[in-house]
């Protein structure tokens, strides 16, 4: 300021400051939008509510309803009504949806500008936007009661319960929300696996990877026999820990909580640390490439596609399905297959994770919605058996047929297009892509839902899944000192993990670990544990776990 005063002279500064003050006052006074009152629609001349029939079948509204739907993802395909799936939705519900996509920046401008879309889909259920849903979204229970009671028949009660806010109402509904019942049904396939190239595995005489010693020995053998390959790979580390954090912990079955039900720091589990020491030894043997730490998602995928890794700890097999399939098709007999990889040194069983009850994307109907009756009908429609099948498999008779045992099968010409012309398939059919309310249990209906390349991996994972519900959404609330501490700790842990694996000897490994422990103490760790334990307790109450 002093410098500016010199440059401009006090004479000019005064009026300028006055002007600025005036502008600030003017800006502060203008209405900030938001908090608008919800639109009430009259159902006269349209339909009378019937709990036994979905409202979309009753609604006689003749003119097409135009709705805007904001999806907080740049990559979302904004077409509507051109492909088989969305055309059917458009016809059945008599709606026209204009999709808008964007990122968090755009979402913020929407909230600030007050011109909210009718429907909104976001991804982070821990974000402040979700916590404050009551101020901008309509409660689904009330909408269902008023306009479409059938909604309660198709929505999972556990999921609705899980997303209930403090006022006792539920505002958003997610996709891929798996309840305990889903886990129990066995319909959810595992998504984590330790995989190895078949040719390598056979050439080495089916070696063992279960114990730290065997793992290290087998990796050295791969390095000696296949010098062109990187013996061990893992998901790109990026901002997280790749597959060497939670995924590895689940693999060796590190407990989810302490014996008295409190938060347990799985990162410092002795069993897990033993495996990290092993990875460090493997690194020092030259069987882990330095590139693996620097690769981003794309770099990793391209290595998977070209079969560069001999073995991998792979998290998210469906996401890599396409890449694995490309390698498999081009190199028959060399495909990746799941084998029993690292195992607990203290006898724990694997506790693999899958999407939890929180799911992935969360859908909302905003207070600005022009026709909330129509909006809740969309929710009901997409969540119903019919809608689920439509999203995944298209229209019966046109794209798929039902088998007597309840499974479904794509028609040969559609299957052919899926295999040989993915672009056209995507454009004309768009099956499995319009997944706002998608769900694993409907994926399990057909053999065609997953690529060939990962089926053996899913088969391998049977019986190894364990819900991690109690650990969902337990991070400290954003904006609190604990949340800041948490962020710092996460970042520190990521670099610590990489440094430990790359440590030049055991002493360096130990001192890095000690540094991290000191960092925990400096960043309020005990307070964070308290917050998390508290939230775990609340989770258990919601889920009815004792």
């Amino acid at each position, binding site marked *: 300021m002093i410098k500016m005063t010199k440059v401009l002279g006090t004479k000019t500064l005064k009026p300028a400051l006055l002007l600025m003050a005036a502008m600030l006052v003017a800006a502060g006074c203008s209405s900030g939008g938001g908090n608008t009152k919800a639109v009430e629609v009259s159902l006269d001349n349209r339909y009378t509510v019937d709990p036994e029939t979905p409202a979309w079948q009753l609604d006689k509204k003749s003119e097409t309803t135009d709705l805007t739907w904001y999806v907080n993802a740049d990559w979302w395909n904004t077409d509507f009504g051109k492909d088989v799936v969305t055309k059917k939705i458009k016809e059945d519900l008599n709606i026209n949806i204009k999709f808008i996509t*964007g990122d968090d920046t755009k979402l913020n401008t929407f909230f600030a500008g007050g011109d909210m879309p009718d429907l909104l889909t976001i991804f982070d259920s821990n974000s402040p936007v979700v916590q404050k849903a009551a101020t901008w979204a309509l409660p689904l229970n009330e909408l269902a009661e008023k306009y479409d009671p059938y909604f309660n028949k198709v929505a999972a009660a556990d999921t609705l319960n899980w997303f209930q806010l403090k006022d006792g109402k539920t505002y958003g509904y997610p996709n891929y929300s798996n309840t305990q019942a889903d886990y129990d049904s066995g319909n959810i396939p595992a998504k984590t696996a330790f995989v190895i190239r078949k040719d390598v595995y056979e050439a080495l005489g089916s070696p063992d990877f279960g114990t730290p010693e065997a793992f290290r020995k087998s990796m050295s053998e791969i390095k000696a026999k296949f010098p062109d390959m990187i013996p061990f790979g893992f998901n790109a580390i990026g901002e997280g820990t790749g597959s060497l954090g939670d995924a590895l912990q689940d693999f060796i079955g590190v407990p989810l909580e302490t014996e008295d039900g409190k938060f347990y720091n799985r990162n410092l589990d002795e069993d897990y640390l033993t495996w990290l020491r092993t990875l460090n030894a493997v690194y020092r043997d030259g069987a882990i490439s330095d590139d693996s730490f620097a690769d981003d998602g794309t770099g990793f995928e391209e290595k998977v596609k070209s079969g560069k890794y001999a073995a991998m700890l792979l998290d998210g097999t469906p996401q890599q399905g396409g890449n694995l399939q490309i390698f498999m098709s081009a190199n028959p007999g060399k495909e990746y297959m799941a084998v029993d990889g690292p195992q607990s040194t203290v006898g724990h069983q694997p506790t693999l994770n899958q999407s939890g009850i929180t799911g992935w994307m969360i859908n909302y109907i905003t207070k600005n919605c022009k026709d909330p009756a129509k909006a809740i009908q969309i929710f009901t429609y997409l969540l119903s058996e019919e809608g689920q099948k439509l999203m995944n498999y298209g229209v019966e008779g046109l794209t798929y047929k039902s088998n007597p045992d309840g499974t479904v099968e794509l028609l040969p010409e559609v299957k052919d297009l899926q295999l040989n012309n993915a672009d056209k398939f995507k454009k004309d059919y768009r099956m499995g892509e319009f997944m706002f309310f998608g769900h694993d249990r409907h994926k399990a209906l057909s053999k065609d839902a*997953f690529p060939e390349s990962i089926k053996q991996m899913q088969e391998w994972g049977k019986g190894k899944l364990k819900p991690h519900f109690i650990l969902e959404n337990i991070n400290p609330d954003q904006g609190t000192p604990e949340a800041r501490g948490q962020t710092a700790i996460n970042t520190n842990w990521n670099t610590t993990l990489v440094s430990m694996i790359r440590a030049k000897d055991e002493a360096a490994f130990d001192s890095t670990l000690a540094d991290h422990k000191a960092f925990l103490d400096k960043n309020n760790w005990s307070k964070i544990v308290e917050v998390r334990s508290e939230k775990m307790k609340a989770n258990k109450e919601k889920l009815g776990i004792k």
Partner: protein
Amino acid sequence: MLLICFMVIILVPLWNVIISSLSSGRALAEGGFIFWSKEFSLENYRAVFNDSTIGQSFVVSVAKTFLGVITHVFFCAMIGYGLSKRYIRGRKLYVAMGVITMFFSGGMIPTYLLIKSLGLLNSFWVYIIPALFSYYDVVILMNFFRNVPDSLEESAKIDGAGDWHIFLKIFIPLSMPAMATIALFNGVGQWNDFMTTKLYITDQALYPLQMKLYEIIVQSQTQSMQNIGGSVVIETTTKGVQLATIVITTLPIVAMYPILQRYFISGMMLGAVKE
């Protein structure tokens, strides 16, 4: 010798980008080439041009760059000309206000609210009107205009020329180097800008090339995420598409450079001479 080394350092990566964009996905995934690709392929470019609306985006981009540059330069020149005259009343206040905008901006959300209340959301004019004025450019032009001898203006006035006449017929032609510099700055900015679109435009018909290409890249990244259970051999990789995009978007602006370059050289000379 140093110059040659320097050139090599710049040209090799540039060449590598071009040649990589002309490689097949497989060759790119395997990597290991610098000067010549193992497998030539136009698939990356085909993937980019496959989008039917890309032509329209190109038109939007060209229109917004062309119109944006002309209006911006003219507008800034007008203000700069005015402010270069010491006898203008309130000049100091205007300058102070301008300087403040160089240090502080409203921030994203207030700007969004402003744009919204001006009715510029989803309008082509959002590319032009908010970009009209840049105090930074005004300062450059103002200083340039000040270097024009007062006597020129005086003699023109004696001959009966008005302010507009002096501005258009004497000052603008004399300041071509400064104008060209600002035009290029602004042109590159307009051409590369996609934040404006991201924030204020939802209508796809108004997407410029940059936004379209941003979309193509993001979608090529997620294509592999959505598990289409096909055994298709995909000819392109995300990296390939990105590289093709870089080449496509950079080429037009690089092509403009030689045309404007002669103004720069004369600009530098002019600035170097002291009376």
